[in-house]
């Protein structure tokens, strides 16, 4: 199953990746090969089998509702590309207001 260039561009857009023309061609080929490989799974008859979210036998892992110590703000912000007023600063978002 061959992925079109358009599909590769869409996937790259969803993952916020900027690809060169060479990369698009390369990934179209590689992703197609991966999909072909997975197609083998579709040959298995799964009717009557409930969807499986996990193969681990663990269920219901919870914590009690008890507040704990948050992280010092200085540490939280130390990797921020930019900060102001104790906040992460990002490129302006044009939002409906």
């Amino acid at each position: 199953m061959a992925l079109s260039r358009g599909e590769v561009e869409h996937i790259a857009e969803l993952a916020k990746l900027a690809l060169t023309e060479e990369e698009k061609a390369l990934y179209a080929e590689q992703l197609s090969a991966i999909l072909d490989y997975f197609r083998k799974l579709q040959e298995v008859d799964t009717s009557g089998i409930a969807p499986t979210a996990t193969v681990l036998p663990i269920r219901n892992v919870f914590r009690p509702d008890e507040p704990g110590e948050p992280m010092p703000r200085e540490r939280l912000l130390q990797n921020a590309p930019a900060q102001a007023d104790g906040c992460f600063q990002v490129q302006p978002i044009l939002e409906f207001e």
Partner: protein
Amino acid sequence: MIGLEIHAELQTRSKMFCPCPVVDSTTAEPNRYVCPVCAGMPGTLPVPNRRAIEWTILTGLALNCEIAEYSLFYRKNYFYPDLPSEYQRSMYDYPLCLNGYLEIETPEGSKRVRIRRVHIEEDTGKLIHIGGVTLVDFNRAGVPLMEIVTEPDMHSVEEVKAFATALRTLLRYLGVNSGDMEKGVIRFEANVSVRPKGETRLGTRTEIKNLNSFRALVRAVDYEIRRQIEIVRSGGRVEQETMGWDEAREVTVPQRGKEHAHDYRYFPEPDIPPLVISREWVEEIRAMLPELPRARMARFEQVYGLTRYEAALLTEDHRVADYFERAVTLARQEEPVVEPRTLAAWITGELFRLMNEANREIQDVRVSPESLVGLIRMVQRGEINMNTGKLVLREAFETGEVPHRIVEAKGFTQIRDVEALREIVLQVIKANPKEVESYLRGKEGVLKWFVGQVMRATRGQADPQRVNELVREALEARRAARSSEDPR
């Protein structure tokens, strides 16, 4: 036809997947309540908050839902700066609660609005747009958020309002959400579609977002219904789109720019094992259900003899209902007994008026149920009249002082000493011979004028009924005296 989607934060002590405290995100210092988990740092492990799950099931039970036996968190993937991990955890295909309903009051009687589903997701951070940049505060990121989705069962703005109010009241009764729209802890979105009478196919629906007050919700739905009817009438077609509510211009406008890449690539959250909800657990949670608003309203009508209207007013906020019932208990303990209906009238009348004026909620009212009952007793015993009672209530409301002290301090006590009152009446009659004359000549209306004069002389502290009797008595005595003098 209108359906609603409601996002209500669960006001647990800690966040959904980490122990960071849940705080008021409108007042807390930004980014003080964040940890590596809710900041979406790699290598962290989210662990669900048990109480948030229980509260969601509790809400589902109160909404007459079926509770799922199996539930699962998914990752909803998209890029936006308010979402630190670039995915939002949400029970996508496996909501905890399904197929319920909420009963509301409409002018045509009560009606059921069906609930399609109730599930948990995590709230996002907050974006602050300021001076050409965007700042991000993650205090709210990871706060448990309950999503409640209705079927499109509402047919008018009034029904939307009734539903929104009833749901907010219910969440408050359950103690899971304060219902404070200004603080953003509960948020509404509306789906609106219209269809001509007799048409069975559904019209194209639009979705309205950005509704941050009850007023905005009601106005936006009203506007959108009229906009769509206009389009259909003029032979046009309604576009399926997402609208925003422009508060300033009071119109809905298409929200552009966000429709790209609506491909969330949901997949099961591998870090959170599935949830299996045993029936024993559900029953334990059911046992936690308090008396719900409608049941309490019905009880107030039956047990206290209130009207539906009074019962509805008193039960809309459970703290008001608690206040009323505390007063009812106190009112029965001593003579003179104050009737529940009298209490209801004072609370929904005078007290609500004062609360509205001061924009104060019942928990901030400084007149205790004890004080209110004491005040009403003074009126019933005739120590003060009704008008003075209202004045004293206002004073108590403003100062927090106990009513009987206010009455003493201000000399408000009604003149009950009949002799003292008779003295004043006689003085007033003596000072106004002309008016006495016209009364004796048959002008009955003058009696009222005399009562007014006496009330003024006593600074309103006399019982008007009693004054009336005394004035009539004195004037008639004059008449009798005159006819015995007159030999004729």
